[in-house]
C-alpha cells in the first residue's frame, strides 16, 4: 500500500486542521503576550516584555506557587490512592481486570462539571455531610466544608484520579510476575521487593500518571471557582479573569505561557525518565 495512497490524503486534512486551529492560535497568543492592553481592552501592537515581568510580582507569584503546591499535593495523594488500586487490578484474573479497569475510567468520561457539582451537594452548608454530622450529634450547627483548599483538593483528586490509575496499571500489568518471584526467591521481603524491584520498574507509569494529574490540575479553573468559591485562586482562574473580566489578553497570554513553560519542563523530565528506563 505504501506507494499507492499519497501521504497527503491521509495526513493532510488532520494536520491542516491542527496547523490552522492549534498552531496558529498558540502562536497568536504567544505574539499577544509581547504586546499591551489598550484602554478599551483592545490589543496595542507595541512590543514589550512587561507582561512577563509582571508574572513575578508577589501576588501573581503567590498564586503560581500556591497552584503548584496544590497540584503537587493532588498528584501525591492520587499516587498514594492510585498505585495500590492499579496494583490490585493488575493482579486480578483476566475477566475481572477489564471490568475493574472500566469502572475506574468510566467516571473520567462523564461530565467533570457535574461530578464537581456532586461535591457541592455533599459539602455545602445544607449538604449531605453537614446534615449527617448534625444527626450523628457530632455538630450542633450546619458546617460548610466548601470554599477552602481541601475542597479544591478533593475536587481535583476526584476528577483526575483515573489519569493516575491507567498508566500505572499498564506499567504494572506489563511486569513479568516472575521477576517479583525471583526477588522473593532470592530472599527479599515483599516490602524490599516493592521498593527495589516493582517501583523502579514501573517508574515510567508513575511519571506519566503524575504528569497527567499534575498538568490539568494546574490549569483547572472551575473546580477552584465552584468548590473554592472564587476565594482561593489558582492559575486557571487568573487566566480566566484576564481574558473574560479584566480583558487584559496580553497579560493572560503571558500567564498561559508561564503554565506552558512548566508543562514543557515536566514533559522533558518525562522524556528523560523514559530514556533512562529504556536504556537499563
Amino acid at each position, binding site marked *: 500500500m505504501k506507494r*499507492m495512497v499519497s501521504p497527503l490524503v491521509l495526513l493532510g486534512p488532520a494536520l491542516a486542521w491542527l496547523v490552522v486551529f492549534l498552531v496558529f492560535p498558540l502562536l497568536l497568543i504567544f505574539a499577544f503576550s509581547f504586546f499591551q492592553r489598550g484602554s478599551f481592552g483592545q490589543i496595542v501592537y507595541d512590543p514589550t516584555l512587561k507582561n512577563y515581568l509582571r508574572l513575578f510580582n508577589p501576588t501573581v507569584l503567590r498564586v503560581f506557587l500556591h497552584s503548584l503546591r496544590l497540584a503537587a499535593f493532588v498528584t501525591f495523594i492520587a499516587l498514594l490512592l492510585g498505585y495500590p488500586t492499579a496494583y490490585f487490578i493488575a493482579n486480578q484474573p483476566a475477566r475481572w481486570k477489564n471490568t475493574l479497569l472500566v469502572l475506574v475510567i468510566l467516571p473520567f468520561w462523564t461530565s467533570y462539571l*457535574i461530578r464537581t457539582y456532586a461535591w457541592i*451537594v455533599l459539602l455545602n452548608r445544607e449538604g449531605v455531610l453537614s446534615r449527617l454530622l448534625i444527626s450523628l450529634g457530632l455538630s450542633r450547627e450546619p458546617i460548610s466544608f466548601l470554599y477552602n483548599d481541601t475542597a479544591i483538593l478533593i475536587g481535583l483528586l476526584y476528577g483526575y484520579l483515573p489519569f493516575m490509575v*491507567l498508566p500505572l496499571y499498564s506499567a504494572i500489568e506489563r511486569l513479568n510476575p516472575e521477576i517479583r518471584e525471583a526477588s522473593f526467591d532470592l530472599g527479599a521481603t515483599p516490602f524490599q521487593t516493592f521498593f527495589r524491584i516493582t517501583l523502579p520498574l514501573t517508574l515510567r507509569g508513575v511519571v506519566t500518571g503524575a504528569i497527567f494529574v499534575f*498538568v490539568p490540575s494546574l490549569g483547572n479553573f*472551575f473546580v477552584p471557582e465552584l468548590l473554592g468559591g472564587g476565594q482561593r485562586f489558582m492559575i486557571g482562574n487568573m487566566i480566566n479573569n484576564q481574558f473574560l473580566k479584566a480583558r487584559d489578553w496580553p497579560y493572560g497570554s503571558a500567564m498561559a505561557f508561564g503554565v506552558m513553560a512548566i508543562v514543557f519542563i515536566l514533559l522533558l523530565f518525562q522524556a528523560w525518565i523514559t530514556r533512562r528506563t529504556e536504556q537499563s
Partner: protein
Amino acid sequence: MRSQTWLRFHSSLVYIFLYAPILMLIVLSFNRSGLPTAWGGFSLYWYAELLQNRALLNAALNSLLVASGSTLVSAAFGTLLAMGLERIARNLVLDAFVFLPMIIPDIVLAIALLSFFTFIEMPLSLLTITISHIVFNIAFVAAIVRTRLSYFDNTLEEASLDLGAPPLKTFFKITLPLILPGVIAGSLLAFTISLDEFVIAFFTAGPAQPTLPILIYSMVRFGVTPDVNALATIVLSLSALLILIAQRFGGTEGFF
C-alpha cells in the same frame, strides 16, 4: 495473603470514593422533596420539571449539534490520520504534535482559540465550538483507530489489490470494515467528550447559544437546585452508556 486483603480494602475505598458522589446524585434526583437531606418519596417530578425548561432543552440541542458535527469531522480526519501515522510516517515528532491537544491544559487551548476567532473576526457561535472540539477529538479518534490498526494485517490489503480491487475500493471493502469497530469506538468517545466538554466551549461559545455544560455551570454557580440533580443524572447516564458501548467495540484501550 494479608497484603491481598489490604489491597482489596484500599481499592474498595477508592471505588467508593469514585462512585459514592455520583450515586448520591442519582438517588437525590428521584427525591420528591428536592432536599439533599430529607427523603420525600420516590418521584419523577424533577425530570418532568426539566421538560418544561426551554432554555435547557435548547442548550441540550446545541450540545448535540456540536457533538455530532465535531464527531463527524474528527472521525473522518482522525481515521485517515491514524492510517497515515501507522504506515507512512512513523515519526516521533509528528506523533507528539498530533497528541499535543491532549497534553496542553484546556484553559490555554481555550484562550488561544478565543483569541484566534476574535483575531480573524469570526463571530462566536456553535460553529466555533465545533471547530474547537475537532482539534482535540481528532487526537482521540486517531489514538483509538491506531490501536485497532496495529492489529491489522497489511497483507489483507495486498491480497485485495492482488485480486483486482484498486486502492480506493480496497479501502472501502477491506480496510474500513475491519477497522470499523475502532472508528465507531473512537467516534463514541469523541461524541461523549464533546457533549461534556466545558472549558473550551465556555470560551468559544456565542452569548446566545450556550451548550449544556455551560448552562449547567451557570445553574450550579447560583447554588444547588433539585432539577440539576435530574439533569446531571441524565447526562451522566448518557455518557456512561456511550462509553460502555464504545468499550464493547473494543475501544478505550490504547490510551496509555
